């Protein structure tokens, strides 16, 4: 078998249809220059002829009428069971998706609810802790708060004493 582009092209054309006179002449010229491909071409041509001779499969004379009847039957059947068909379509196509979406939404809502409940519980606990304190000091204790705060709470280090200690 040859991979020559001219031969390959003509051979591929011959697979689909009879070569035109010009193509046939081109092939003959090419084969004259490449006699080693003659046997391959003979086999190709023989197979083309064989495939070309395959008979058409007989089609019954009432084939078209039967197709039209079948189409009519289908149309009537579709009209008779539109709801059933719609439900089947819905069941097969959308119900699984809808169920999956519902599960996701349900899990989301449940999680949100639980987070909210936990938050509320913490709040209640902290309020209870505050209310458990029996007495708080009166507001008088805070009267001089700012003045006391402004005072330097730690005296300056006694440098001399530190030196003696060392």
């Amino acid at each position, binding site marked *: 078998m040859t991979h020559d582009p001219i031969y390959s092209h003509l051979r591929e054309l011959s*697979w689909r249809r009879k070569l035109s006179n010009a193509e046939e002449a081109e092939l003959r010229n090419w084969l004259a220059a490449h006699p080693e491909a003659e046997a391959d071409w*003979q086999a190709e041509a023989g197979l083309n002829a064989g495939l*070309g*001779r395959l*008979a058409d499969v007989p089609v019954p004379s009432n084939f*078209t009428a039967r197709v*039209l009847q*079948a*189409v009519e039957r289908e149309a009537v059947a579709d009209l008779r069971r539109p709801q059933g068909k719609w439900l089947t379509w819905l069941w097969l196509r959308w119900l699984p998706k809808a169920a999956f979406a519902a599960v996701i939404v349900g899990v989301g809502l449940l999680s949100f609810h639980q987070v909210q409940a936990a938050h509320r519980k913490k709040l209640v606990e902290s309020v209870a802790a505050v209310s458990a304190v029996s007495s708080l000091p009166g507001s008088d204790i805070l009267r001089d708060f700012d003045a006391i705060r402004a005072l330097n709470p730690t005296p300056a280090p006694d440098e001399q004493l530190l030196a003696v200690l060392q």
Partner: protein
Amino acid sequence: MLLVKQGDAAAFTELVEKYKQPVMNVAYRMLHDAMEAEDLAQAVFVQVFKSAHRYQVSSKFSTWLFTIARNLCLNEIRRRTRHRAESIEAPHPEQEDQPLRQFEDKQTASPPERLLHGELKAKIEEALAELPENQRLAIVLCRQEELSYEEIARVLGCSVSAIKSLIHRGRETLKEKLKPYLRSGAWGAPE
């Protein structure tokens, strides 16, 4: 097809008339059972009518039609594989030496010639039947002059180079199996 999309029954009848033969040929060569091929061809046209609204005007009708035929053929072949159903006309193990069904030869005249060509055709049908499905379909569609390699590629869902490779491999197998007949020149020159 545009008229069929609008529900024109006459246009649909015309389409069926035009394409029933090529669809039957493809179905028979894929299924090797005349009755099943007939039922399948009918199903193909019913499907065409039902799916007419989905037909894209940009694609060629025959490409779309043979794509439907191919899908239904493959479904049927898969169903057979699953159920291991044997049709009445399919060769039974004890009949494996018998040729596949032959159809009337309208191209040859004399009885001896018919006999010879009948035998040769049976051999070709047998060799074709033994090819893998995609190679067989590519070769059968290749004989539909209406379809280009690009269109055959679209029907089979692969590239043009892949189609040519499939056809080439299929034909190599056929040439190998039919070597004695090809050598004898019994089929003569290409028509």
